[in-house]
């Protein structure tokens, strides 16, 4: 187990260094003027130029620049956004909102997606199964920003069931509609995955053996089938954290939620390069760490992995 862990940890570090290097290189090397890439089309004052050059060490060789940037990322010194605010402050006040939204979305995915998938898988070919297959396919084919804007105009503006934009005075209730939008894609893929997994496990040899030993259907499904079919689902939920983060950028943008995703959305609109690069790098880090955790969880759940 520890060998597996060490190998996986090294891989994650390598991937993180590689991925952030690519992002950094793309940001600063393909643009004609890296300062202008940071600030977009807005004219830069000489003092801003000096400040940005110093912040990103743009007068040093490229690899040194990248080294400083990594050092800043790891030690939490993110520098300032174009707006002048320290990026660390912006992030500190935004995280809680994104975490609340993301957890609520994950909860919806688990409650509706996994439960629905188990039900559909147990009754394969039934009405619910057929309908959910069609509906989830449409959801998978619909970009999240379309789901977001259509839901916002339908459920919030037309029907008035929800507020169309962030209302902190409502507490957690303000996240319900955005969380549904954010969770929609994972819900659809998760439901299909759970369904297939349950349906396949129902036909497995061990189910026949259990039935031959005289176990009740309830026990076979509840203990044997569910336990085995939910292993890939757990992994899926973990890897979806990455998808949820890209989704949060769009969802929080649409519903005006000032979380990490909303800040990134605004950073893009306002052409705030430092904010965008920092948030993207941090999101990559979180994505890789969750993938690592999921792999470890997978190894705990399924002994074949860690021995293999």
């Amino acid at each position, binding site marked *: 187990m520890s060998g597996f862990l060490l190998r996986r940890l090294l*891989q994650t570090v*390598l*991937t*993180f260094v*590689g*991925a952030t290097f*690519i*992002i950094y290189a*793309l*940001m*600063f090397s*393909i*643009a*004609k*003027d890296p300062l*202008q*890439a940071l600030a*977009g*089309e807005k004219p830069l004052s000489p003092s801003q130029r000096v400040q940005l050059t110093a912040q990103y060490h743009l007068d040093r060789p490229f690899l040194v620049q990248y080294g400083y940037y990594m050092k800043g990322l790891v030690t939490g010194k993110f520098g300032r956004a174009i707006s002048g605010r320290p990026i660390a402050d912006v992030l500190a006040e935004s995280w809680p909102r994104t975490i609340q939204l993301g957890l609520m979305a994950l909860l919806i995915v688990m409650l509706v997606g996994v439960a629905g998938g188990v039900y559909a898988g147990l009754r394969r070919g039934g009405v619910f199964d057929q309908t959910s297959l069609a509906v989830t*396919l*449409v959801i*998978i*084919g*619909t*970009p*999240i*920003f*379309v789901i977001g*804007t*259509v839901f*916002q*105009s339908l459920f919030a*503006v*037309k029907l008035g069931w929800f507020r*169309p934009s962030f209302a902190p005075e409502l507490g957690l209730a303000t996240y319900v509609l955005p969380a549904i939008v954010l969770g929609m894609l994972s819900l659809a893929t998760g439901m299909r995955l759970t369904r297939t997994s349950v349906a396949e496990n129902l036909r497995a040899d061990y189910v026949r053996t259990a039935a031959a030993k005289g176990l009740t259907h309830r026990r076979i499904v509840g203990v044997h089938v569910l336990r085995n079919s939910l292993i890939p689902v757990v992994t899926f939920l973990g890897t979806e954290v*990455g*998808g949820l*983060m*890209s989704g949060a*950028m*769009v969802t929080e*943008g*649409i519903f005006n939620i000032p979380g990490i995703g909303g800040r*990134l*959305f605004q950073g*893009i*609109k306002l*052409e705030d*390069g430092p904010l*965008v*690069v920092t948030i*993207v790098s941090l*999101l*990559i880090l979180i*994505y*890789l760490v969750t993938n690592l955790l999921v792999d470890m969880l997978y190894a705990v759940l399924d002994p074949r992995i860690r021995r293999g």
Partner: protein
Amino acid sequence: MVSAASQDAPRSLAGDAWYDLKRNPVFWIAGMVVLLMTLLAAFPGLFSSIDARTASCALSDSLRPPDASHWFGYDKQGCDVYARVVYGARSSVLVGVFSTLITGLISVTIGLLSGYFGGWVDGLLARAVDIFLGIPVLLGAVVVAKALSGQDLGIWPVVIALGLLGWPPAARVVRSSVITARHQDYVLAARVLGASHLRIMLRHILPNSMAPTVVMLTILLGTFIALEATLSFLGVGPRNTISWGVDIAEAQRWIREATYPLLFPAGFLTATVLAFIMLGDAVREAFDPKLR
């Protein structure tokens, strides 16, 4: 042309697949939508008497609901939504096709090399795949498109961003199908006959591992169209072009007053993305002997 005798004759895998596809309504519907969108992209003038690129929009028409001559109504600027939807297809389809070409080229090269040679080549390329998989496509594309946004390069920043970041899943598919093909007897026969590595790869392995690759790329094309619209929605999409994503973003600001300018481009976009995904799915099912 199909006689009773030829129907009884054994069919090849591709023949089998085509036999199944012909009977699959999903394949025909998805195929028709793809064809329609391609026509819209190539000849928008055939579908709309108004050229959305040059048409003058009257603010007095702002957000007017649909009527008999303007089926989709007007947007905030008073432009005909139908014309804009028709002319918006081009940027989506072009971005989809070009990014898929780049992705296809990279993923086939990498998948072929790592699947065929295995060993340290495979190990090295697997690390590269890991690194690129570590970058969520949308986030990476935002950075690339943003860095290039200073210059007026049309659709190319988006094409480059999606093409450069979207290939890892496809490369994995190519690699695994190359590995299955590598151990077949005809490959061994070719090697015994003295064929070079390049010839074996290009003439024997590639054609035999093409089906899953093409399926994957078809589905990716749909995903790229969705991503292009998302990037336009975020404000880093192709510049100075009519695009569904831009129109949806613009319409979203006025949804309290009118929903038509939002729903029509959104519907076209979803139909296109869905058509490519379903087309890919239908072909995959037809080629999968396990589902027979």
